């Protein structure tokens, strides 16, 4: 097995690619609704419809990109050329998204649809190959985790930067449409440069062992569903994203109605960010010692403990903070290993079926994570409705309160337990060295 230790510069170079994504993507997720309703002047309903349509559209675009990546054979490799091609279009599409030319009410709405769908396509076109790149840079399972840790840390820096700096920068440019467009010119240039850095500093080293030519989609899809570890990870990622999106969405209700101070919501968010960042910087030796799967199990157990701590007194702020920090630390191994585990299922699939389809494995995997986020948000709505929640009132019914407590405390426990069950059957960490060895032998036969 190729045991090349990657240079710091390559790992950092890989990591900054996710900062590029976050500069545009997180800022779009955070500010686009506001930009449309308050700067451009669309109705909230029109914006909601736009976002929903884009979400559906997006899932299919991802899979399409994955298939195209698998067909790509350029001198730059399979995934890297996409970063080269799309770095600058990605930056430009960000600027277009946050520009609002005067086209009249219908024209503006059409402009919004075109630019938002365009950025969705370009984002998928860059982000799917970016994820795939992890599996192509190295076959060493530990180095893959390190790449993923760099990615996560850079993503968090990017996300924190845009959430805190965007509004001051916009105001610095005098606010209004002009302010937003100028701000996104800066983000666009930075994002393009960062993606190009990823392109320049990384190298694709992993080559298929069994068949070199492109496999028809019908066969590669069939092969994908024979890859049991891939299927486990899709379910695993879906659960994980349900948990985190429920958690994000329920914070504000928890602050308002259980802690009875809505301002505590930002406290709850910050105390989940900081332990995550610190944890990611320290997690590598634990993964090295215990492996990805076992580290993830440890993390899930810590998450369950965190949720149990809340039960001591769900209304006591100190206890809730201690519990949140604990839960957030429990989330660290998941953030560090999930995509790296997905990368390992590429080799399992090749070993089992002869077909190496990184693009499909990744894009169909990220489909699971997107479905999970969507479901998570929906679950919050359903559970609140089930509890008879009525918004905008001083006090809520006892059953609505129970719903919020259930989502904040019990749901993470249930989901974490299910995830542990999946990992119990996940034995790829152990088999992986043998799989890579056999693939290497097959290549040389």
């Amino acid at each position: 097995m190729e045991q090349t230790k990657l240079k710091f510069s390559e790992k950092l170079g890989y990591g900054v690619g996710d900062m590029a994504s976050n500069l545009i993507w997180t800022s779009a997720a955070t500010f686009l609704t506001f930009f449309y309703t308050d700067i451009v002047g669309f109705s909230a309903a029109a914006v909601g419809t736009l976002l929903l349509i884009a979400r559906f559209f997006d899932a299919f675009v991802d899979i399409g990109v994955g298939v195209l990546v698998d067909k790509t054979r350029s001198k730059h490799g399979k995934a890297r050329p996409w970063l080269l091609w799309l770095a600058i279009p990605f930056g430009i599409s960000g600027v277009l998204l946050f520009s609002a030319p005067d086209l009249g009410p219908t024209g503006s709405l059409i402009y919004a649809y075109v630019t938002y769908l365009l950025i969705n396509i370009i984002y998928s076109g860059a982000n799917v190959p970016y994820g795939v790149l992890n599996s192509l840079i190295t076959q060493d399972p530990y180095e893959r985790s390190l790449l993923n840790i760099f990615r996560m840390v850079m993503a968090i820096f990017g996300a924190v930067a845009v959430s805190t700096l965007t509004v001051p920068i916009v105001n610095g440019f005098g606010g209004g449409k002009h302010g937003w467009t100028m701000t996104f010119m800066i983000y666009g240039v930075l994002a393009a440069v960062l993606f190009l850095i990823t392109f320049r500093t990384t190298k694709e080293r992993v080559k298929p062992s069994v068949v070199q030519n492109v496999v028809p989609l019908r066969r590669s899809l069939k092969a994908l569903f024979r890859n049991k570890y891939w299927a486990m990870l899709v379910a695993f990622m879906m659960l994980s994203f349900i948990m985190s999106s429920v958690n994000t969405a329920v914070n504000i209700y928890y602050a308002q109605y259980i802690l009875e101070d809505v301002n505590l919501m930002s406290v709850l968010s910050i105390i989940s960010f900081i332990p995550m960042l610190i944890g990611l910087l320290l997690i590598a030796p634990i993964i090295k010692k215990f492996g990805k799967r076992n580290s993830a199990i440890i993390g899930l157990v810590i998450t369950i403990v965190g949720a149990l701590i809340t039960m001591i007194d769900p209304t006591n702020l100190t206890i809730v903070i201690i519990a949140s920090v604990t839960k957030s630390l429990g989330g660290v191994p998941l953030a560090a290993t999930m995509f790296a585990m997905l990368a390992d299922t590429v080799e399992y699939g090749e070993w089992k079926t002869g077909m190496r389809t990184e693009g499909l494995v990744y894009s169909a995997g990220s489909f699971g994570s997107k479905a999970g986020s969507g479901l998570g948000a929906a679950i919050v709505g359903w559970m609140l409705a089930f509890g008879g929640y009525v918004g905008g009132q001083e006090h809520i019914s006892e059953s609505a309160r129970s719903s919020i407590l259930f989502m904040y405390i019990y749901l993470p426990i249930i989901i974490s337990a299910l995830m542990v069950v999946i990992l119990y059957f996940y034995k790829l960490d152990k088999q992986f060295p043998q799989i890579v060895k056999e693939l290497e032998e097959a290549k040389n036969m």
Partner: protein
Amino acid sequence: MKAMKITMLTDGFPVLFAKQLSQAAAAYTSEIRIIWEERNIISDVKSILGLMALETKKGTILTLTIDGSDEEQAIELGKLFE
């Protein structure tokens, strides 16, 4: 046309065995196929992907068929299943 029954020694065709078998088969000009009667599947033995797609169990009985000018020699492939 030659045919012989073969019995799988492993679950499915592991990558190394599939590679060995497909390479050995490629050395002959004859058409070489594996027929899995129970499932109604015919696979080209010269194609490694075709072999790896067969989700047989250990002990599954298959038919190896060889059709062509060098079929007498190619029947030697059956020895790989012993």
